């Protein structure tokens, strides 16, 4: 069975190489390395996921254009982990995609997933196949926590790396922001029952309590339900001074709309799962106005040093990038640097050599030098905070202009 599958994938890969390789003429002799990409590109988070995908694809095509890896052509293999039944990312589909990547020998590394719930399903499979994955967006701390090594590192070596920091910083730093900058005294905390949302809300809640914010309650939303008015009425009746939500767009859009109706005047916050065009277009203005959204990376799209890159992205995809398009691009840079390191030392890149090179290297990227600790987490830990502020000069779904950067969240 395994042998047959291997043979099938080999034939498929050879056929693919033949088809793609031929038109390029001179490149026909190049060997192909496939970089897997797994993102929820049709789900409730599609617009955000597509920006991440475009960031990664731009990295791959720029590398091919500049022949960044001499003798090799990089090819993306894009897989979708959103399903119609879930309406958003689906961990079961993510696991299937992980198997697909592992079973294709030409896949030496991968970018994604966007969602921690998917990552939790993928990483054990990737670890057994020794396939490295770099996430530009999944922030749940369990994935790289040595306490869960048996689950997420059964191969014994880290295969899951991040070009963003984790919710172990995103949640608490945002709680610091609510306590120190917004001077909030009481709060109600909600999550969307996903792995990411629950973990983020837990981390936020713990630090909020430590900061002296009174946590008036905690509840869990069903992302497929439509009506959140009863819980929001409860939040209002308790006199909460603020609301925090851990979760992604599917529940988030409905929460934003109904919160605007029921508790319009209190500060409301959420994590990077809500830093997405889907929230802006789904909730619309004025409902989305004023939400504080954190991101687990430094804020980059306003950086003047990156204007050339942003121009390239815009002309290629006809839309503005967001910060996670950049962290995805950075992930590709890390992979390319690792492959080059292996090639330069005279080796043939394979999964283990690429993995080892990623784990040990420091790579200059758009967000600065990226290196990883022994668990696979990025060593920089900046959490940036945005306030959704309507700028009518730009389209509603333009994250670069509708999320206004208001500063980095205070570190604990």
């Amino acid at each position, binding site marked *: 069975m395994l042998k047959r599958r291997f043979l099938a994938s080999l034939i498929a890969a050879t056929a693919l190489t033949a088809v793609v390789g031929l038109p390029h003429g001179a490149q026909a002799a190049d060997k192909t390395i496939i970089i897997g990409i797994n993102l929820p590109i*049709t*789900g*409730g*988070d*599609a*617009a955000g996921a597509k920006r991440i995908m475009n960031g990664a694809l731009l990295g791959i095509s720029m590398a091919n254009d500049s022949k960044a890896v001499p003798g090799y052509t990089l090819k993306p293999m894009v897989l979708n982990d*959103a399903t*119609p039944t879930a*309406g*958003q990312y689906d961990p079961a589909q993510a696991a299937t995609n992980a198997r697909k990547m592992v079973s294709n020998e030409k896949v030496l590394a991968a970018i994604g997933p966007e969602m921690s719930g998917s990552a939790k399903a993928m990483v054990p499979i990737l670890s057994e196949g020794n396939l490295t994955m770099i996430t530009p967006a999944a922030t749940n701390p369990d994935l790289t926590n040595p306490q869960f090594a048996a689950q997420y590192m059964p191969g014994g070596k880290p295969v899951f790396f991040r070009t963003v920091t984790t919710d172990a910083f995103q949640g608490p730093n945002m709680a610091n922001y609510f306590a120190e900058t917004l001077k909030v005294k009481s709060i109600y905390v909600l999550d969307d*029952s996903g792995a990411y949302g629950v973990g983020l809300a837990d981390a936020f809640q713990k630090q909020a309590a430590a900061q002296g914010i009174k946590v008036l309650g905690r*509840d*869990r*939303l*069903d992302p*497929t*339900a*439509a*009506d*959140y*008015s*009863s*819980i929001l*009425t*409860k939040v*209002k*009746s308790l006199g909460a001074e603020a609301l925090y939500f851990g979760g992604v*767009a*599917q529940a988030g*859009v*409905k929460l934003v*709309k*109904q919160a605007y*109706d029921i508790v319009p005047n209190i500060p409301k916050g959420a994590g990077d799962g809500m830093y997405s065009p*889907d929230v802006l*277009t*789904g*909730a*619309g*203005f*004025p*409902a989305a106005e004023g939400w504080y959204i954190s991101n687990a990376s430094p804020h980059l799209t306003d950086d003047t040093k990156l204007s050339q890159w942003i121009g390239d992205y815009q002309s290629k995809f006809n839309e503005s990038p967001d910060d996670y398009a950049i962290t995805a691009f950075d992930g590709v840079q890390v992979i390319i640097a690792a492959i080059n390191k292996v090639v330069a030392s005279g080796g043939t890149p394979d999964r283990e050599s690429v993995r080892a090179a990623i784990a040990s290297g420091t790579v200059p990227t758009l967000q600065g030098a990226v290196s990883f600790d022994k668990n696979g987490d990025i060593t920089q830990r900046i959490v940036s905070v945005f306030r959704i502020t309507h700028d009518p000069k730009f389209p509603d779904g333009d994250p670069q202009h509708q999320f206004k950067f208001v500063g980095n969240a205070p570190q604990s």
Partner: protein
Amino acid sequence: MTPFDLLLQQLINGLSLGAMYALLALGFTIVYGILELINFSHFNVFMVGSFIAMGVLHLFGIEGQSVLLHGLPLVGVLLVVLVVTMIACGFLGVIIERFALRPLRGVKGPMAMITTIGVSYILSNVVLLTQGANEKNYPNPIPHWSFYIGGINGARITVFQILIWVISTLLMGGLFWFVQRSRLGKAMRATAQDPDAALMMGVEVNRVIMTAFFMGSALAGAAGLIFSLYYNFTSFGIGFSAGLRAFTAAVLGGIGNIPGAMVGGIIIGLIESLAGQYIAVKWADVIIFSILVLVLICRPAGLFGRLAPTKS
């Protein structure tokens, strides 16, 4: 807010929710009453209705929540959208019946029910593939009028909530009158009691069944429009969670029984809303379905008794 205001507010929220579940539950109940068929495609006829209405609203130039209408234009636009959506959904129901279900009518067993699940998936995937999966910001021309009972800190009722109650009551009342009083309604009841005898008495059974599908689906279309205007959003996935609760409402009230579906819908809406306040939202589904199980154990025919074809 005093505890009393709070209770009142949750009752208002729950009644609005319940009215929508009731409209949707009626479609299950009418079809079941006549064919003894659980029609799962109803879930997504509701969803398609919400998209059809969105298209019509876009034709009127209404985008997002920034274009607000008042007075006669508002009433006119809403009426046109409601009527177009109901007729379009009604025909969708008739098409589903004619092409997917009638060929299976004589077949014993769960084939027809499974076909309706298939149709349901086809509808949701067609919308997913043509409209995308992201949640749509729903065009809504209704201004945010609302008033408070007992001062600014009291319970708040929006005019749209009252509109929901009025429209639902009118539609449900109209249906009830139609089934009880009109000729076709009598034929429907006769078919429900005994299809073979009705056929022998000269009732056009095919026409009766088509009417049932048309009316049930038209009500689902109305529910889809009201739902989306109330929550200001729609997506290809709204059918399943709302549909499942509406189906539960129909069973709770006694599937096949029209007043039962209305009461069942209101009960489910109130439970969902009160559970969110006094227990926790995360337990709402557990409570709803536990009550369903309890009712069915104590009264297997539902609260109001089942109305279904007599099998001889």
